[in-house]
């Protein structure tokens, strides 16, 4: 057990999974790096975020595979290898690039099991860096997991800390269904205690991060820390909240959310995606149906506005939900 960044926790999970199971390999753009390059330093890069660093050196060219810039082919290659028994972990760099490989994710990988009458397995994991916070503007800042949650057949994971990231990724690799693994890139450098051994966190089990009586807060990914900060700051004002991080948006731990809302009667859902057809609406609607009789106040969504992510740091700061907005929304419910 030691403090690790989320980047290192994911890297460790990959190393361990690959050491344990020969059928695991990684594939993506520059996951090794320097292929074909005059320096000869193949493997020196480990992905543009450094998440796969060291893997080429440990596992060699058959298990750490660089590709051209061809995301559809990357996902397809993962899907095809998985159909014949491998356990690929593909990296698609930025979640926004789902745009160029959506068919392979949604219509192919995600549907085989059902369309083939339950007779196939496609244990592929696709990793993405998601979300805002880098002034990376409209095409490099989207969370995208909410959109993928809409598609049956795909499991969708959004770790909010290094500990969860490791356990959820190890689970994802063992899972026999395709798993989309969204790494909030704003959290790569965040640290927490992470066991050195392998462990898994089951899908569909939410994490309870705070317990309280007044309001249930459900938050995803990058928003979890902000929700923690908002809730902790409100403690002094005598407000206490449940904080739930579902960790996997599909399967979703409906029970955990409903139980909490039944107890508190108030719900705030926080995500960094825009408002329409997103996870905040999804979970608000869940409560409005199945916890309706417990609700004492409007169900609130705290999310980005309905616009692309702006470039300018000031604009992006206004775009992504802040601790203050979460806090004031909670207070509004109690007013």
């Amino acid at each position, binding site marked *: 057990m030691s403090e690790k960044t989320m980047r290192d926790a994911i890297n460790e999970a990959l190393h361990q999974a690959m050491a344990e199971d020969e059928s695991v390999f990684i594939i993506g753009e520059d996951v090794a790096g320097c292929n074909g390059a005059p320096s000869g330093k193949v493997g020196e890069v480990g992905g543009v975020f450094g998440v796969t660093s060291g893997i080429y050196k440990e596992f060699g060219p058959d298990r750490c595979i660089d590709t051209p810039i061809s995301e*559809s082919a990357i996902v397809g290659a993962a*899907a*095809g290898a998985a*159909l014949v028994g491998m356990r690929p972990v593909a990296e698609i760099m930025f979640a926004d690039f789902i745009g160029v490989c959506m068919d392979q994710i949604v*219509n192919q990988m995600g549907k085989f099991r059902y369309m*083939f*009458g*339950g007779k196939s397995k496609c244990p592929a994991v696709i990793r993405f860096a998601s979300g805002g916070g880098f002034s990376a503007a409209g095409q490099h800042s989207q969370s995208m997991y909410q959109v993928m949650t809409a598609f*049956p057949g795909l499991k969708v994971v959004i770790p909010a800390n290094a500990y969860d990231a490791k356990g959820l990724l190890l689970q994802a690799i063992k899972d026999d269904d395709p798993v989309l693994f969204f790494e909030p890139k704003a959290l790569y450098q965040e640290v927490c205690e992470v066991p050195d051994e392998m462990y898994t966190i089951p899908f569909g089990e939410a994490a309870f991060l705070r317990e309280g009586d007044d309001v249930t807060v459900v938050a995803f990914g990058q928003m979890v820390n902000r929700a923690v900060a908002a809730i902790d700051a409100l403690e002094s004002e005598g407000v206490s909240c449940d904080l739930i991080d579902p960790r996997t948006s599909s399967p979703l731990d409906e029970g955990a959310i409903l139980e909490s809302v039944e107890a508190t009667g108030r719900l705030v859902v926080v995500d960094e995606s825009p408002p329409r057809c997103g996870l905040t609406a999804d979970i608000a609607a869940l409560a409005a149906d199945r916890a309706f009789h417990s609700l004492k106040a409007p169900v609130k969504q705290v999310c980005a506005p309905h616009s692309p992510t702006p470039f300018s740091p000031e604009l992006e700061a206004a775009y992504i939900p802040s601790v203050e907005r979460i806090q004031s929304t909670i207070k509004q419910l109690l007013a």
Partner: protein
Amino acid sequence: MSLPKKKLLQAYRQMKTIREFEERAHAEIMNGQIAGFTHLYTGQEANAVGVCEHLNDEDTIISTHRGHGHCIAKGADVIGMMKELFGSSEGLCKGKGGSMHVADIEKGILGANGIVAGGPPISVGAALAARIRKNKRVAVSFSGDGSVNQGTCFEAMNLAVVLNVPAVFVIENNYYSEHTNIEYAVGCDDLKTRTEGFGFPVFVADGADFFSVFDAAGKAIDHARAGNGPAGVFAETGRFHGHFVGDPQHYRADGELDDLREHSCCLKRFREKMAESGEVSQEELDSIDAGVLALIEQSVAEAKAAARPTPEQVGNDVYISYGTG
């Protein structure tokens, strides 16, 4: 090229099975017995069989929207397939896939595919698995003359070369993508050259002639299996039906279809060759015909009698159900 008699009989049987499967499917669609969108392979049988006769169960294929022929050639259970077309829960995919998604992973059939050029990237993945495991398998993807214009197809070809994997790209040029001719849709003058530009050899075949396809496919598959990276097969062929059942085929020249059935029928051609060479007698082929017809008849009878899916089955074969609704 001389083939053992057993192989010859097998090839003919496969082609005939596909032909009769398709013709019967056509009739049953016209009868209203088969729902959905169905694309028939009649006329192109020699392509699927000429390729798949080189493959074993561990090799994989991935097919297209026009998938019945490839699946049968690769060994899919014909009765299970017919049941699938009829939407029975006893079908190969329990009635969930239908014509466009027939699959049998155990037999190395990674599925027909409703998305044009959805298959090639997946096939590269299967080929990559073979490379990693060094198990000498090959992965074949089928594409049409229209599908080769889809970005995924190009990406797959380049990636296969980059990764040096045993992927075989079979392009069946039946001259049409839906209602558009290859002359229009493929901008360059020579699709074979454009394909070779990606960095692998492409072997040309007469897609109405089993032996020609078998020969070209053999070269491509040997190339790939030997670890030399991907290879291609480019076959000129023709479909005897419309793009889908019911297509008025405004694109055809007068007499084009008659001409195709007359001069580009792989079954006729096969019989002619056998008559010439004397390797197989016409009676032997007649008896195969009879067996095939009986099998297809049986498949339809069984499909009509087979269990229908029940509403609860909607929610099976997916990892979770949500309580909404």
